[in-house]
């Protein structure tokens, strides 16, 4: 018997209007259209979503965990990007 070679898709679901699409898992499908249909049956059987994105897993580019420290280092020492960095007297209103 021949082996199936349906590609792997990653699935993202928008839970409701106003929220981002969130990654929920993956599935195999022969093409993009079937991937959306399969994703509906697999990941939204109980009204978990109002919108679905699918993307072939091999089309995703990701940062690598091995380079975690150097890759995210530029954000590490910039505490002045956070509001708590600044000393403001308690009695200044609305700040």
């Amino acid at each position: 018997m021949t082996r199936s070679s349906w590609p792997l898709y990653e699935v993202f679901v928008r839970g409701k209007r106003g929220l981002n699409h969130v990654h929920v898992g993956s599935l195999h499908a022969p093409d993009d259209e079937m991937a959306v249909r399969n994703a509906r049956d697999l990941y939204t059987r109980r009204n978990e979503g109002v919108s679905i994105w699918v993307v072939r897993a091999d089309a995703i580019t990701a940062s690598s965990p091995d380079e975690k420290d150097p890759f995210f280092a530029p954000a590490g020492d910039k505490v002045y990007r956070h509001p708590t960095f600044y000393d403001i007297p308690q009695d200044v209103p609305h700040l």
Partner: protein
Amino acid sequence: MDLEREFERVVAADHRIEPRDWMPDGYRRTLIRQIAQHAHSEIIGMQPEGVWISRAPSLRRKAILLAKVQDEAGHGLYLYAATETLGADREDLTTKLIDGKQKYSSIFNYPTLTFADVGVIGWLVDGAAICNQVPLCRTSYGPYARAMIRVCKEESFHQRQGYELLMTMMRGTEAQRAMVQDAVDRWWWPALMMFGPSDAESSNTEQSMVWRIKRHTNDELRQRFVDMSVPQAKMLGVTFPDPKIAWNAERGHHDFGEIDWDEFWQVVKGNGPCNAERIENRRTAHEDGAWVREAAAAYAAKKEQVA
């Protein structure tokens, strides 16, 4: 080694290991084996209840059972997807299942003789599965934990529909009540066996606890299940086929009798009442579906050429 220390630090801190992290080969192998076995159980588990869809006594029960069996297919797919994040191949896992090289839960090798079995499977078998699965929502491997959160949310409906079905039958005729008790008598011991061998005999437990793949031992979970089930049986008006079940105030738990471990190992080794039939059905479904998978792939390839 730095990588190994980092892995141990993340696990010990109760953080999650994610797919692209370095992990020991043994951790990866153990996870693939455990998650695949779990996925196979969901897929094989569609059969004992699936045969009752056409014979369910009302449209309501038919719709419920359809939804439940569809959920089990879904649970199998969530879990196969989790194994694929570890580098496993779903087609390969299916082949191993139908060649008998990977196992599934022994519980599905028992037959469903009456409609009361559908209720008892929901109550006791899914109840035992929930005891096993709730702690897995905090298992150390991220994709597995996330799949289990989805599974557990849906299992709750499975257990409640089963208990409700049995309550309905218990309000019926004497014959219906006898049917429920008979189903409980047949499923109670196999349900206890779902927690696996006793801690003394369980070869995988210790390392899995260190890696936080497992969070409780087999015997701890089995005890929890007995303690949960005894009052539920009382409410329902049935008894368990174990004269040794008794509240032990000193331990704060129910005592219960010894499992027939010979039967357990016989079923694990493939000699249960339905082992051959379950695998044969799975093989037939897989082979009969081959042309659909091939046709869809051919259509996709053709469309890509045209575009």
